């Protein structure tokens, strides 16, 4: 079978197909190099404190897989479990945080609302005073959250899949999908054709273009999301800090760099060029949280492409074309879901059935009117 996209989703799917189901006759097609898309452009934050019960149990499974990934792949993925704070700057945010905390606890996920004094203990550099432009009223604290080295995750999965017999083809762009009488018969690529009955679309940014090749339309629009990183400084920030109101999230890597992420850009685009407007807005927002960072210099900025769905939940499973499966629509939350997406997509392909864990994420939900409404996703205003 053929998997389109050599990022964490495609490679994890290939890995779990081989490991859990003994299917190794798999080709992973990557038009550039592995991890060159969203897998290498995200801000590497892991958490499972979502809003809907469907989302919580799904991402919690992913976090559990991430926790033991280094040992399983024999590859140091540098998972650092350091706690995750989602700040609330207004009453409605605080209400959503309480709601999320209760949904999380009901699913066995460690998550609670804390006040400014406790936030100050976790992040002494944060301006928790009432003088701030947007005073911090509280936060959703999620101790199991953390960061990981995203490149290492990609390389670890690729190496493990390769060792079991999976073929990873870099520099190989999909150019066509052959469909006869409603079922997939093969794919064409920039380096030749492959006869196959199963194609799994694991792309981000190009998911609608790939699906169009099979004649499947997806309710997805592609928006860039920009991020930036500073020069390295001594460790001072232990937790991951997120503010939906200020459209910013901050964490410090093991090298000492501060990694900043934001909301998606205000209009759809396939461009990954950074903009000055983004840096200006980002710097202003970061300084409102931590004024002492004002002399820190940015090293670089970049953008990744986010495939946004109408309900901020992914689209996973079978489509109306027999043999064409999708694992797309990963918006701003794809990286943290890599392992569980790979595990469930592998099961979906191997057994032909949709695993219960992803039953809420099918493409049919848009026609049936049963949308998920995951407002716990990043870059979603409350």
């Amino acid at each position: 079978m053929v998997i389109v996209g050599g990022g964490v989703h495609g490679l994890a799917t290939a890995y779990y197909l081989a490991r859990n189901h003994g299917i190794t006759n798999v080709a992973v097609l990557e038009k550039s190099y592995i991890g060159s898309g969203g897998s290498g452009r995200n801000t590497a934050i892991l958490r499972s404190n979502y809003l809907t019960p469907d989302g919580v149990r799904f991402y919690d499974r992913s976090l559990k897989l991430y926790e033991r990934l280094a040992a399983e792949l024999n590859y140091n993925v540098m998972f650092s479990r350091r706690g995750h704070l989602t700040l609330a700057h207004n009453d409605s945010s605080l209400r959503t945080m309480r709601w999320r905390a209760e949904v999380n606890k009901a699913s066995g996920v460690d998550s609670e609302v804390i006040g400014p004094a406790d936030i100050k203990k976790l992040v002494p550099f944060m301006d928790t005073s009432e003088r701030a432009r947007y005073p911090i009223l509280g936060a959703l604290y999620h101790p199991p959250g953390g960061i990981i080295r995203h490149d290492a995750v990609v390389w670890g999965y690729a190496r493990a899949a390769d060792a079991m017999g999976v073929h990873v083809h870099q520099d190989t762009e999909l150019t066509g999908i052959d469909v006869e009488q409603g079922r997939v018969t093969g794919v064409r690529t920039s380096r030749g054709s492959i006869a196959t009955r199963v194609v799994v679309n694991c792309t981000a940014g190009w998911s609608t273009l790939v699906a169009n090749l099979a004649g499947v339309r997806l309710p997805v629009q592609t928006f860039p999301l920009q991020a930036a990183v500073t020069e390295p400084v001594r460790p001072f920030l232990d937790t991951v800090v997120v503010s939906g109101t200020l459209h910013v999230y901050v964490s410090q890597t093991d090298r000492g760099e501060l990694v900043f992420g934001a909301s998606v850009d205000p209009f759809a685009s396939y461009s990954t060029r950074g903009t000055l407007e983004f840096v200006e807005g980002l710097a202003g927002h970061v300084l409102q949280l931590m004024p002492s960072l004002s002399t820190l210099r940015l090293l670089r900025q970049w953008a990744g492409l986010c495939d946004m769905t109408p309900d901020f939940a992914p689209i996973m499973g079978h489509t109306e074309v027999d043999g064409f499966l999708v694992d797309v629509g990963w918006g701003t939350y794809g990286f943290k879901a890599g392992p569980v997406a790979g595990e469930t997509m592998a099961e979906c392909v191997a057994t032909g059935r949709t695993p219960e864990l992803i039953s809420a994420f099918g493409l049919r939900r848009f026609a049936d009117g049963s949308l998920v409404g995951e407002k716990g996703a990043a870059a979603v205003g409350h």
Partner: protein
Amino acid sequence: MILIPCPWCGSRDAGEFAYGGEPTPRPDPRTATREQWRGYLYLRNNVAGWTTERWYHRMGCRRYLTVQRNTVTNEVRQP
């Protein structure tokens, strides 16, 4: 970012505008099937390349306008 050519105000920074996206014709609610409604509500072409789209000049003349934009390069031109 990019400049949007407003026919009334001239080329202005995209930050003054609200993005309206691809125009999607509304089907007749009396005759539309569920699939047609789904398409109207959720399906967009999401073109990589030149596309025609609506913008709203919210911080200017507050009028809607149509522009063509290349979604790969963000190059903009008058329709």
